[in-house]
């Protein structure tokens, strides 16, 4: 009798477990772009997986185009339309296809982890462009999706083999049962706030509201600058041409909460100095007169129209760069004029005019 009980127990447990794992495996393969990751690394691995998936999709189409990769944060994610850029390339007969792998909350460390994994797993981009956000090097930023790891070498991309899916599938799916990660997922796979001009009620439910958080304190992080330099080093080692651009910021400061805006020159200056030292192209779109307030969703993020405008400008810059020209728009050495601009911005902020 006891033997019968034990066998019955084992049989039932096995049956339920096999059913559960079968469903888990099916779900992992069925959910588009779902990476094998945990909740902490989901943000980064999702973009890594999406980049690989995009490359595979283009390769399946049998087109002989080279990969142009964009890295950066939300200002790049929302500011560069890869589909529009591909259309422009097509018109200009430039043989590139674009992947915008930048993501909201990304900063140099997150980009470094993603980029390292992309290269280690066989991605061969023809060119890499990194969009600089004014909070890019802010160690105090609360908008960075910080993973709090000193050693990030353990964070590795895992291919979706059956064994890996069995091992990591549950952790991977657990991100879908976590509200913030689920929204990140929906946001990423829909290119929310970039391709969708006016999100309707259900889209707002899916993507969340455009309630970006503002940083209130700022300290330039040498560590983040080194991460940025490491990304360049990885490119240099593989002879991948690399470029920077400064993403635009809404020209008029709206409120006291936008004060970190004033720190942009410190980050820009550090990056520009590095670009000068290494002879890296750097294109500055944060110049007065290029964009007006109507082309922004908020202080930092371009609207759909603004994104198309900047994408068109980028297409011109890339075409020039492809012909071997290194353009360096160095406009922000911390000169007296910049200091005046900072002071002026501050006054405008405080008195709101």
């Amino acid at each position, binding site marked *: *009798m*006891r033997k*019968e*009980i*034990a066998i*019955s*127990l084992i049989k*039932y*447990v096995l*049956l*339920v*477990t*096999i*059913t*559960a*794992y*079968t*469903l*888990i495996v099916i*779900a992992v393969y069925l959910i588009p772009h779902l990476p094998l990751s*945990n*909740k*902490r690394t989901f943000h980064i691995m999702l973009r890594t997986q999406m980049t690989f998936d995009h490359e595979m999709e283009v390769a399946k189409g049998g087109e002989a185009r080279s990969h142009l990769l964009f890295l950066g944060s939300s200002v790049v994610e929302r500011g560069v339309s890869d589909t529009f850029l591909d259309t422009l390339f097509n018109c200009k007969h430039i043989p590139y296809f674009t992947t915008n792998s930048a993501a909201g909350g990304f900063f140099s460390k997150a980009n470094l982890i993603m980029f390292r994994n992309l290269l280690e797993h066989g991605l061969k981009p023809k060119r890499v462009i990194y969009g600089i956000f004014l909070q890019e090097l802010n160690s105090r930023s609360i908008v960075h999706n910080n993973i709090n790891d000193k050693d990030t070498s353990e964070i590795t991309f895992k291919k979706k083999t059956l064994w890996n899916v069995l091992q990591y599938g*549950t*952790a991977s*799916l*657990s*991100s*879908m*049962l*976590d*509200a*913030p990660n*689920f*929204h990140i997922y929906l946001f990423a796979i829909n290119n929310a706030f970039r391709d969708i001009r006016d999100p309707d009620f259900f889209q*707002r*439910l*899916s*993507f*969340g*509201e455009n309630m970006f958080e503002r940083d209130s304190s700022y300290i330039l992080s040498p560590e983040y600058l080194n991460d940025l330099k490491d990304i360049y080093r990885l490119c240099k080692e593989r002879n991948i041409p690399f470029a920077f651009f400064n993403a635009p910021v809404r020209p008029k400061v709206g409120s006291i909460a936008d004060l970190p805006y004033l720190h942009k020159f410190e980050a820009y200056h550090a990056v520009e100095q590095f670009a000068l030292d290494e002879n890296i192209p750097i294109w500055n779109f944060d110049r007065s007169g290029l964009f007006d307030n109507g082309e922004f969703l908020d202080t930092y993020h371009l609207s759909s129209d603004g994104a198309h405008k900047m994408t068109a400008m980028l297409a011109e810059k890339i075409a020039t760069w492809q012909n071997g020209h290194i353009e360096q728009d160095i406009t922000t050495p911390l000169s007296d004029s910049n200091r005046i601009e900072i002071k002026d911005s501050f006054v405008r902020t405080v008195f709101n005019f």
Partner: protein
Amino acid sequence: MIFNSLAFAIFLPIVLALYYVLPFKGQNRMLLAASLFFYAWWDWRFLGLLALTILIDFYASHAVYRAQTHKRKKQWMLISVISNITVLVIFKYSNFFVQSFSEALSKLGFVVHTPTLTLVLPIGISFYTFMSMAYVIDVYRGELTPTRHLFDFALFVCYFPHLVAGPILRAPQLLPQLTHERRIKLEQIRDGISMIIIGYVRKVVIADIIAPLVSEAFSHMDTMGSGDLILRMYLFAIQLYGDFAGYSDIARGVSKLFGIELNLNFATPYLSQNITEFWRRWHISLSSWLRDYVYIPLGGNRKGKFRTYLNNFLTMLIGGLWHGANWTYVVWGALNGIYLGIHKAYLDITGKPQKQTPELQKWTFITPFKILFTFTLAAFAFIIFRSPNFSSAWMYVTKMLSFQGGITFIGSSVFIIPFVILAFLLDVSQYTRLGEKFVTRAPLWQRAIIFGILFGLVLTAGADNSQPFIYYQF
């Protein structure tokens, strides 16, 4: 060791395998050893305290049983009660009482520097002391003959499925199952596994997924609108229920695999139509313990109307304090005492009898409104239960009732809907007994699919998230 841990996932199959190969006596000894190991996994040093409670109550129960005079019996019973309460006071309430006393004095203008003890709260102390103490009281009342074997009594107190978070079992229910050879039935295995999976769904899929939203509300209530706070008040009620009922389901399910039946602790409390019914369905083992060992000894309803109301109130007050050393729990208990008092007064005035078997009540169009009203009362009281202090609870309630700002965090609020529906479906299937019918009658393949889906959800939700059970702290 907690039920939602890898350690337990390894521990349980080993214990089950040993259990099935051992003879009866060996089974009990192994279960006792396993239970002690289970407890020691958290902190082995507290085994001594557990052993002390067991030894005192075992010998007190025999002394009560052997005593020739009523006075002597009472003395031994009191020794047991006082020793258990002393253990509880020292480890759970000492700092609370000292600080409260000190604060009261300081409000009167006396500045007193009172010493506080730095003690770790032994896990499950409120559960096992109540069980052990009730055993001696039952012997004193002549309702129970004490077991002659210390090991059997020790297993009764330490039996690992109920040890750290209940249900609070009575000796007449559990001891005979421990002292007599058990014959496990195939149905027990089937029901046990189903119950374990349902328990994990309640804990890992429902309670743990809701938990961050609730924590957010209590830590950032200033950024939230009234709509958010109302929603999260209900969510905390669902979280707490999922957490605690989930634990009870797992405990009952695991115990079934050993052929030992534990009592139902939660009988779909949120489908209650009034607050009295709610308390008959919520944490049944504690409610009935308080009824038998506090309310009835206080006089119950035998000493007039006023005393009945007072006894009811005092019992709920003690029930609140049982949950933790904080005035918020006491006030939570008091608020529920007031609820019960009002409901009793309503019944007294209208002359309506309180139905004893609520599940047999007919549903009418007004029933859902009664259920929603009762659920709201319970959820409102849980705000105090969840808050770290009164100012936080007050801030939550005033902000919530200011009706300013709707639901600002729409995305996460929508995200949680499927999990709330799942919680509701589980309760409806329990209430209507559809779940029970499915488990007993459905073919194996259908059960495998349904429980496979649920188990898959558990594995997924629990893969990267492990939160301790709320009731472990009590």
